């Protein structure tokens, strides 16, 4: 991990607007050839961070390194970084070819090479034959591809993508996600991607930085972020989860015991920092929970409740179980080949889940 050269490094980067922090003390390392995503709700500072890397904003303090060299003083047009803008920002008065050729013209590339590379880039994004069209004549998806071609044709060290799929409809967005990922594999360029769509981030990223209020909440692979969220915010923002409030009553190397507010004791995955007495929130993903007719064994967590709602969704069924003194628990069950064991009618059921699927998060 440490022998992979770094593409981008942020050292204690801050960005203040007027009197509020847009980004606060960001420390971050992005490896070469990585597909890295900034994920967070709007206003979390992800776009500001991207714009600082691109050179459109200057950090108030801290250092940004590109390929090992500090770049704070370098203007955007001298950075070996290209951006795919959210609005695409295609030049409306230029043909598709001239849009794609723009960057190379600015760098004084010979016109024969410009032609060759531009055509190749258009081929890469499957827009061969569109050279003479104007941006106004293309659909949203096609413009998106032109924006992509216009950026990658310059062979940047890093490609920045600012919610590039936000304006596309769902189906096209899914297709483009896969294409982007393939493109990144083929080009080997570092991709830095900004999105507020957690599903999108999980689909395409090698690593994700989840941001909230100008700070990074967690950095990790999609699996780490989803399976082992380190904060309540991350657990809540990524996917759906059940939150159970309680306090730590016992801690060992292999187990954490949490007593919930309504008196049940949960066995939870170990956490070295949480000592007895600490108030915690336990997060359990709905698909990790099963509904069983009888109380599960002692190694598992089991709670009795009444079935409140059954929502049939085709590939899956969602159950909502009301605990007698506690909250409602959401359970996702995949509708596979095996018949559903859970009751279809309302009545008393047990929710069962493994300790390793329970994450205790400090409140």
């Amino acid at each position, binding site marked *: 991990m440490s022998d992979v050269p770094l593409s981008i490094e942020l050292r204690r980067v801050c960005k203040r607007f007027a009197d509020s922090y847009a980004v606060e003390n960001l420390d971050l390392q992005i490896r070469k050839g990585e597909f890295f995503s900034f994920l967070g709700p709007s206003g979390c500072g992800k776009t500001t961070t991207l714009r600082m890397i691109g*050179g459109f904003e200057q950090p108030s303090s801290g250092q940004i390194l590109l390929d090992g060299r500090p770049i704070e003083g370098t203007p955007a*047009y001298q950075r070996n970084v*290209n951006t795919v803008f959210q609005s695409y*920002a295609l030049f409306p008065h230029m043909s598709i070819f001239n849009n794609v050729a723009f960057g190379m013209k600015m760098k004084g590339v010979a016109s024969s090479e410009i032609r060759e590379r531009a055509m190749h880039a258009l081929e890469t994004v499957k827009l061969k034959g569109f050279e003479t069209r104007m941006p106004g004549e293309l659909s949203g998806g096609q413009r998106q591809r032109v924006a992509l071609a216009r950026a990658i044709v310059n062979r940047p060290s890093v490609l920045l993508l600012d919610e590039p799929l936000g304006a596309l409809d769902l189906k096209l967005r899914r297709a483009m996600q896969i294409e982007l990922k393939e493109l990144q594999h083929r080009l080997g360029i570092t991709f830095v991607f900004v999105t507020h769509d957690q599903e999108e981030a999980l689909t395409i990223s090698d690593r994700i930085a989840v941001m909230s209020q100008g700070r990074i909440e967690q950095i990790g692979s999609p699996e780490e972020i989803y399976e082992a969220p380190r904060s309540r915010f991350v657990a809540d923002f990524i996917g759906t989860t059940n939150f159970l409030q309680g306090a730590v009553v016992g801690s060992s190397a292999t187990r954490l015991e949490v007593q919930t507010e309504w008196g049940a004791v949960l066995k939870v995955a170990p956490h070295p920092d949480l000592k007895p007495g600490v108030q915690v929130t336990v997060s359990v993903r709905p698909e990790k929970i099963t509904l069983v007719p009888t109380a599960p064994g002692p190694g598992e967590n089991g709670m009795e409740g009444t079935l409140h709602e059954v929502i049939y969704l085709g590939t899956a069924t969602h159950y909502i179980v009301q605990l007698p003194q506690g909250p409602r628990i959401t359970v996702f069950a995949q509708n596979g080949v095996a018949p559903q064991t859970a009751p279809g009618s309302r009545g008393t059921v047990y929710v069962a889940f493994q300790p390793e699927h329970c994450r205790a998060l400090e409140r």
Partner: protein
Amino acid sequence: MRDSRALQAYGLLSPSMFWLGMFFLGPLCIVFVYSFCLKGLYGGVDWREIGPDGTVSYLFTLENYARAFDSLYLKIVLRSFRIAASTTLMCLVLGFPIAYYIATRAQKMKGILLMLVIIPFWTNFLIRTYAWITILRSEGLINNMLRGMGFLGPTDSLPLLYNDFAVHLGMFYGYLPYMILPLYSSIEKMDFRLLEAASDLGANQVQAFLRVTLPLTMPGIVAGSILVFVPALGDFITPGLLGGAKSMMIGNLVEDQFLTSRDWPFGSALSFILMAVVLASLMFYLRVSGTDASRAQK
């Protein structure tokens, strides 16, 4: 359905068409006919001659047009063209940064600044031009100030009035708003994120301006230039008041023919030559700048 719509359109258009026909096209035709007539003894025109035997012969002559190409008048036409063109260029070069500045302010500020641009219109053009005389003349504001500060001797003065400089200044001042307003509206419409994109792709500020801002604001540049050039070419108030004997423009010449020399036919011919010059310049200008402008509007 379609017919009634067309009828409605004609109905709505007819008052203005009547107006234009009656008070624009009609007089224009009269001027056109006059330009081929002879000058009357006491003003007016002679368009027919009644011989002593009562026979009527109609007079038609190209003499007025031929006379306009006399080097004396040609020089005035060329000078008018030069002054109008340099005024337009001056308005464009100095108006662009102003329009750009206004277009990039916050909404509230835009309104205030645009208001400031329009305020001069609240006063009559003639009066504003007279005001320049009090500023520029040898006993005027500037010369008095310079004398007071000791930059000029008590009997010296800078020749600021009654020359081409004063004409340029007066025209620049008078027509600048006509340049700023269309420029503003096309700059304001521009997507400034395109400049970020240009910068991202390696264009420095000059390159971004030349390749993105300039072509995208071409409609405003064309409109503003026409709005300044056309009235500047025919202006007779500014050169009449601020210009010297050597700053006479074609507008003054036309004015003279009608009011002083009583040579209506020659004045009419000059008017048509002026129109021809305007038309030819516009067509040339639109051809040069037209391709970019029409593309940018897509």
